[in-house]
């Protein structure tokens, strides 16, 4: 507001809140799906079960955010720590496995939607010579993917030959991956040494994210090749090429990542609502701070409640009509990302200048 004026400032705050709201069902749904997947692969396709668990996740994360910023920070340490440890193990295994690059390896058996996706994405092995191309064999329980590891190369970093459309897609993806890693600057006024800690945290978290992305992306691509990695989800990737224990750990990594993102979506959204309420740009009830926990209680629960309503609306429409609004919401966030990234002042200035 103080930099761009009240109208653009107000809309910047709105864009941040809406983008946070739109992504919530995907993060909660992912948490629900991967929690079920941890115990029962078939049940993970039960939309009612995963939606119910997803709503519980939203409630639980709202409770953590309402309970206090210190509990939020500690839970982030646990969730992110788990994710980083598992991904490090995954990267070591992936690079080790890919040492024998260029050879065909019989992967695990995919079932359900993953098997259908593999059959539509790859040719049957009988139809291809054993070239460096993933293919599948039909087996009794599903399809067995035959994959080809490739040697890691620095040339993968080159943009040469990439179309402008792919570059744009990569740019939006980069913004999407960064989702939640800027939360430290959203809670700057609640941080120890507020003049220094949030800024240092923002820079360190950016480098940490870059490291995680590079190591896991190189590990995945070198293990299974670029085609399979691009076309399949993390659980399919784990099911094809990893030992069962590591496959389960990979599911836990996705689960903790989605849960952590769920939390780091609630925190900035509610701080933006708090800021707009403090400046009387929206009803000042949104600026109400819990006297005991020192968190924006009303904003937190309102955001959680609206998120659940939005989640149910997406699921109902997507499940009962031909419009896949649920999947579209992921694209919508990528779409909105340039808006919220283009207005960093409202995201980064916490309760002082946002709105």
């Amino acid at each position: 507001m103080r930099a761009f004026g009240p109208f653009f400032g107000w809309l910047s705050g709105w864009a941040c809140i809406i983008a946070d709201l739109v992504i919530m069902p995907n993060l909660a749904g992912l948490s629900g799906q991967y929690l079920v997947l941890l115990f029962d692969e078939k049940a993970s396709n039960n939309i009612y079960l995963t939606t119910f668990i997803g709503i519980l996740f939203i409630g639980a994360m709202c409770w953590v955010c309402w309970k206090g910023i210190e509990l939020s920070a500690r839970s982030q340490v646990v969730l992110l720590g788990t994710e980083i440890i598992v991904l490090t193990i995954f990267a070591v295994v992936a690079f080790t496995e890919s040492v024998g690059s260029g050879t065909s390896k019989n992967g695990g058996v995919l079932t359900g939607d993953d098997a259908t996706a593999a059959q539509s994405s790859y040719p049957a092995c009988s139809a291809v010579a054993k070239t460096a191309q993933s293919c599948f064999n039909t087996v009794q329980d599903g399809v067995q993917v035959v994959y080809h590891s490739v040697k890691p190369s620095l040339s993968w970093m080159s943009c040469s030959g990439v179309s402008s459309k792919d570059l744009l897609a990569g740019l939006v993806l980069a913004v999407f991956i960064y989702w939640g890693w800027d939360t430290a600057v959203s809670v700057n006024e609640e941080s120890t040494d507020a003049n220094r800690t949030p800024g240092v945290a923002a820079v360190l978290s950016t480098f940490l994210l870059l490291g995680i992305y590079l190591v896991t992306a190189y590990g995945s691509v070198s293990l299974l090749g670029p085609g399979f990695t691009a076309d399949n989800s993390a659980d399919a990737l784990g099911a094809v090429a990893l030992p069962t224990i590591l496959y389960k750990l990979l599911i836990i990594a996705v689960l903790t990542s989605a849960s952590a993102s769920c939390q780091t979506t609630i925190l900035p959204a509610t701080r933006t609502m708090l800021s707009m309420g403090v400046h009387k740009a929206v009803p000042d009830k949104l600026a109400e701070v819990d006297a005991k926990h020192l968190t924006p209680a009303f904003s937190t629960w309102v955001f959680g409640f609206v998120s659940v309503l939005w989640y149910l609306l997406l699921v109902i429409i997507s499940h009962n009509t031909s419009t896949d609004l649920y999947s579209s919401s992921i694209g919508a966030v990528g779409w909105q990302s340039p808006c919220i990234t283009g207005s960093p002042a409202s995201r980064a200035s916490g309760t002082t200048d946002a709105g």
Partner: protein
Amino acid sequence: MLVYTFFATIRDNVGTDGDHALLFTGTGLLIAGIPFMIWCRLKYPTFFTYRPDPPDTVPDPGGPSGVIAAELGTYTQGAKK
């Protein structure tokens, strides 16, 4: 670049396969803020009377009270150029 990305994704998604669900959730919810902003403008007029801070009145965030911040692009850590 980000503005270009925004409009390029609109063109790609609407022009090729007419995905109106994406149009609704992506742009519709952003535009939905405009009537809400107008309502807030009527309900809370004071906020909308603020103007951006003139550059020559922005206080130095690290300096003593009353000191104006250095001109953009001239600030160095610990001392001003």
